[in-house]
């Protein structure tokens, strides 16, 4: 406490709550506004004596509580009705009685924690360990069993001599000046201090990345990866058990699977064109089906109307039109064979398109061909 540093306040100590209450009343009456009373515990009636306004912290609690209930209801409603509605136990999606407990808890949580933080940070301007009163004999006294008054130097009516006399007049003892520590001078609220913000940023980064790592990786690390590595042989996975290393076993030679009809004309386009006959009748449902399959599998190259004018034109050898005389004169079997076996750069579609669907496509191609080359009779 060097004498060169500026004065913070003049302090005085009192021995009983009555004495300090009386002194506080007198101080307020004398017109001092920047003064404070320090007591080891709250003394009843002091607010009135110091002419303090009733604390408004209750309003914060009410606001934060309302925020809690609203955010809970909003979150639950959004989840239950919009984000992922699930049928649970035959209950309605918005099962309001079941939402009451969580809403209540969030209300209490936000109201309690946020209003306490508000009080400490905004009303008390804490954390602040650099106050001039700290580490003074005055503080040591009022933290145990004495009662004190400090009239601050920045009070408009402050005058060291008159304050000392005033304190003496209200029977204060140990009247002492308290000065600012040099390093205390600029220390007020330090929430926006750069160092504090830097620490905060580091903490945020560590917490955020830790949470991310935990939620996305740590929970599934071995040995907790049980269901990710299941002891079962999935289709097309290898198996060490078999000499050829294939998990899927090929059928025994000369056998065919139930319901499977082998295609006898692989590589025999001419025969297929001669021998195969479309087994489906050109009914409306068949043509609709053919259209759907055509638009799915054929149109990407051959175009929506079979004109060979898709967006792929120019990227590859150009897909041919299906409306050419050549194709129009093909038999149904030839078209079927090309779909089944492929031709030039066109691969086989046998695995994607079922047999019946291929025949339906053939019907639809006929429809397209006829539409592009309509005779007058068709228009009637």
């Amino acid at each position: 406490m060097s004498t060169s540093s500026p004065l913070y306040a003049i302090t005085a100590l009192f021995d009983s709550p009555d004495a300090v209450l009386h002194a506080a009343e007198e101080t307020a009456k004398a017109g001092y506004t920047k003064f404070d009373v320090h007591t080891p515990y709250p003394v009843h009636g002091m607010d009135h004596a110091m002419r303090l306004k009733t604390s408004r912290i209750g309003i914060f609690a009410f606001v934060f509580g309302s925020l809690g209930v609203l955010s809970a209801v909003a979150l639950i409603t959004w989840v239950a009705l919009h984000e992922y509605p699930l049928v649970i136990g035959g209950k309605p999606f918005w099962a309001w009685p079941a939402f009451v407990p969580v809403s209540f808890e969030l209300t209490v949580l936000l109201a309690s924690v946020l209003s306490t933080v508000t009080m400490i940070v905004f009303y008390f301007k804490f954390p602040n360990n650099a106050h001039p009163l700290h580490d003074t004999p005055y503080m040591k006294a009022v933290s145990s069993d004495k009662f004190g008054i400090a009239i601050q130097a920045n009070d408009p009516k402050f005058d060291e001599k008159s304050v000392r006399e005033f304190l003496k007049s209200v029977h204060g003892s140990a009247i002492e000046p308290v000065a600012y520590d040099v390093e205390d001078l600029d220390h007020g609220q330090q929430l926006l201090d750069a160092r504090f913000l830097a620490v905060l940023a580091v903490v945020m980064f560590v917490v955020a990345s830790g949470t991310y790592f935990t939620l996305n990786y740590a929970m599934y690390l071995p040995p907790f990866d049980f269901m990710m590595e299941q002891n079962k042989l999935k289709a097309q996975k290898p198996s060490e058990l078999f000499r050829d290393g294939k998990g899927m076993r090929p059928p025994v030679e000369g056998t065919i699977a139930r319901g499977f009809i082998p295609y006898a004309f692989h590589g025999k386009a001419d025969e297929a064109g001669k021998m195969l006959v479309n087994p489906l009748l050109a009914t409306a449902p068949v043509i609709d089906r053919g259209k759907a399959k055509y638009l799915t599998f054929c149109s990407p190259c051959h175009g929506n109307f079979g004109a060979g004018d898709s967006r792929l034109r120019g990227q590859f050898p150009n897909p041919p039109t299906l409306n050419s005389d050549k194709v129009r004169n093909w038999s149904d079997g030839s078209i079927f064979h090309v779909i089944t076996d492929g031709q030039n750069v066109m691969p086989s579609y046998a695995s994607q398109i079922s047999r019946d669907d291929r025949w339906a496509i053939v019907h639809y191609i006929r429809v397209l061909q006829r539409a592009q080359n309509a005779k007058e009779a068709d228009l009637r």
Partner: protein
Amino acid sequence: MTSLDYTIDPPITTRAVTPAEIDSAIAAPLDRFPSKRWWIAFGVTSTMLAGGLATIAYMLYEGIGLLGFNQPVAWAFDITNFVFWVGIGHAGTLISAILFLMRQRWRNAIARFAEAMTIFAVLCAAIFVTVAHLGRPWLAGYLFPYPNQHALWVNFISPLVWDVFAVNTYLTVSLVFWYLGLIPDLATLRDRTTNAVKKLVYSVLSLGWRFSNRHWSHYERMYLILAGFATPLVLSVHTIVSFDFAVSVNPGWHTTIFPPYFVAGAVFSGFAMVQNVLIIVRKMFKLEHIITMKHLENMNKVMLLTGSMVGYAYAMEMFVAWYSGSQFERFVFLNRALGPYAWAYWTMVSCNVVFVQLFWFKRLRLSIPIMFAVGVLVNVGMWFERYVIIVTTLSRDFLPSSWGHFSPTIFDFGIMMLGFGLFFTLVLLFVRFLPSIAMAEIKAVMDGAQAKH
């Protein structure tokens, strides 16, 4: 009965003490090297804790099948211990919040201690309901609602999610409440100590508190508001724990009286635990003049009251099970009293309802050995209450084909040890490092503490 004089306020301490004496009496254990007895106790509890942690680690490695539960008794020691510890945690908030709102001045001497025990007990409960209970505890994060790529949230209809919210809220609010009360005391310790390290720690923890009346004014209002929030919160927490059972369709679990009954039971067991620990602490730290016989007697009276409420609930359950006429209900309650777990049921009834009736007599209420014994029995009884509710109900429910028996394994006792080890270790550390009685609050209610105008 002439000894009682109704015209005067009952004194707070048994002999006149000055505020400075309060400070030194309470801060003394913090300033000296712990006694040999403390080290022995600490050794025992930390060994229990270590044993419990080893059990948990082995379970994590091998699977929770190490515990004894089965189909149909899929909950047993884990949830019994969870409910037990949550229950213990209820005395603290009751003392600190509800008795505060009722302006029971005697609560000031024991509030700090009870609040600390609340926090420790809720921590124990949280451990049981996650690592000792879940089949895949490493996925416990799924119980929290957080945005994720599956767009899947928690089931807000499930009572277990309510539990997550309730226990976490309770833990957080209790911590805030407890810490708020600690701030002035930490500031007092800061100003008392001569040790530089302690001074630094207390300075940081006390956040720069300086006993300013401009702060006290907000502080007192905030304390009142927190008490106002904590009161419904404490009811809601054990209510929600009771919902864990009562929302089910199982006869014996689905009983509408569960919410108030569980709350009463929780307060009952919590008071028994606080009373037991305080009896030891006041003796060890020579605080008999601050934590007086009157405190213990009042706690015993609360135990008598809540114990009788629990007895009322047992009787109502029995009566209404009979009155319902439903064969499932009737069977379950007969099965409790006469079935394979009848021993547990009658242990529960005798410990919770019968023994506590000794407290009708003032002499027994004031006898330390008797009240200590009854307190222990109450906690045994309350543990068995949860055991009876969980195990007997599940072991024989709707389909006789699926009935079963539960018998605990050594690992069940291992996790149980974890709870007691953790709790008492934390209690021992607490009495060693923090003021176990709220100094500022005691000073505020002593004779002559307030102005007589």
